[in-house]
């Protein structure tokens, strides 16, 4: 990859250690993705905020990095471990480590968004704008639904882009118009957003390319596209879908394939509690759920994960009130994936609506999951 004189100098350390590290990362991912050069980006979304995901060495890295580095473009960040206004039951040690991570990011100048759905919270740049998104559901959603251009970045590569304002011009970021090599055809009628999530997870597993064409499904709603993006980002390296369009390689997604994914992730019949989110709930999911449970009570503890921005918007129009009267609890700033709110010491199993959530609850939180769509959860657990 060709660097400008100024970029070379930063790489050589003339502008400090942090920028040298950032350019080392950009040079490495540029080589890995066969980029010709770096291009300016307008937005970075960084993951690696929850203490459960990056641990002590991550905290140490960020503290050192933040002593010099400052963001030069709009930078939003992923959820942290817990709701800042509900620290009860979170250990003092976790709270302290989490505060260290947050303050390092704040020192760098990030927006403390604590959301995995930045596309639902912030003003979207023009179609075709180059961005750098580490959160995988956000990369897939923004590429596919909003016409933004990002590769499936890592926590460190998006951070490098945040402090340099640049990212390699390669793969999805370099695309003119994408013609995916593989098409997946759904040959049954989807009943809920969960089917979109299963398709996403299947696609991520079987498609080795960075994009895929999806055939046989209608253009997904925001709620459905979030489920699809979450599933796809979890299982593979594919970071973009198109709806319709022919391709060289054709793969079928029938009931059998959907069932196989469900069998992998659905590890329990029932759960001790309900966790909703991943991606965090937006206005779409909150509106849907509130209609379904209005005037009813949840029969189990029900945690709804959403961003503080969405929560405050939903509160203004009475949505959070309706759900709280049904007994739901809101957990802002955090999400189901690797949250310390859900531990195997406390729970054997949980009911979850999300394919992505189910994957991490099973594999990282080590609790069993009863995977159900939002409508079914409302039907079975609210009366």
């Amino acid at each position, binding site marked *: 990859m060709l660097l400008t004189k100024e970029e070379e100098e930063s790489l050589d350390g003339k502008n400090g250690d942090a920028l040298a*590290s950032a350019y080392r*990362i950009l040079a*490495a991912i540029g080589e890995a993705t066969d980029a010709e050069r770096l291009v300016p980006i307008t937005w970075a979304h960084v993951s*690696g905020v929850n203490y459960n*995901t990056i641990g002590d060495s*991550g905290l140490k890295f960020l503290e050192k990095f933040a002593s010099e580095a400052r963001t030069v473009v709009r930078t939003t960040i992923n959820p942290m471990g817990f709701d800042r206004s509900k620290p009860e039951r979170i250990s003092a040690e976790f709270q302290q480590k989490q505060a260290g991570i947050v303050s390092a990011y704040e020192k760098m100048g990030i927006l403390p968004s604590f959301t995995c759905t930045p596309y639902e919270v912030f003003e979207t740049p023009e179609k075709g704008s180059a961005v750098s998104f580490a*959160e995988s559901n956000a990369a897939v959603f923004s590429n596919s639904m909003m016409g933004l251009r990002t590769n499936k970045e*890592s926590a*460190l*590569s998006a951070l490098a882009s945040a402090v340099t304002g640049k990212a390699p011009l390669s793969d999805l970021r370099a695309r003119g118009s994408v013609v995916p090599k593989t098409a997946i055809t759904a040959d049954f009628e989807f009943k809920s957003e969960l089917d979109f999530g299963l398709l996403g997870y299947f696609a991520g597993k079987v498609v080795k390319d960075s994009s895929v064409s999806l055939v046989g499904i209608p253009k997904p709603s925001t709620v459905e596209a979030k489920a699809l993006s979450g599933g796809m980002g979890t299982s593979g390296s594919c970071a973009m879908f198109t709806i319709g369009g022919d391709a060289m390689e054709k793969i079928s997604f029938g009931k059998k394939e959907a069932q196989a994914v469900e069998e992998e992730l659905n590890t329990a019949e029932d759960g001790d509690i309900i966790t909703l989110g991943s991606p965090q709930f937006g206005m779409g999911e909150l509106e849907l759920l509130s209609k379904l449970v209005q005037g009813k009570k949840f029969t189990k503890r029900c945690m709804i994960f959403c961003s503080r921005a969405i929560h405050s918007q939903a509160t203004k129009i009475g949505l959070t009130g309706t759900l709280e009267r049904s007994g739901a609890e809101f957990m802002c700033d955090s999400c189901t994936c690797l949250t310390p709110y859900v531990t195997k010491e406390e729970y054997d199993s949980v009911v979850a609506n999300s394919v992505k959530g189910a994957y991490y609850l099973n594999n990282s939180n080590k609790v069993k999951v009863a995977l159900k769509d939002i409508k079914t959860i409302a039907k079975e657990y609210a009366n």
Partner: protein
Amino acid sequence: MDAKSGLITDPRHELNGKTIKGSVLVFPYSVGSSVGAYAFYSLKEHGNAPSAIVCAKADITTASGCAIAGIPVVELPAGTELSLINQGAMTRVDANSESAKVKV
């Protein structure tokens, strides 16, 4: 894998219980979470990093994590089978920014 011990800790993995410390780690490419990049850094911090990584396709997670951890990453030429390198084989990796050699 557990960064503190350097051991692979996935019971479904054929190398479960083996250490990757000081090894030449061979894999096709990485999948999974974007925070995986920190795992390479964490291994280095705990003194359990592999000596080198050989993969079929260097991906963004591996490349960015290894850039910070100082672990050399070598991508095999397209069409080369990873299975040419057997588990346990003495493998030598010579790499700089210009060229790389993998000798089994």
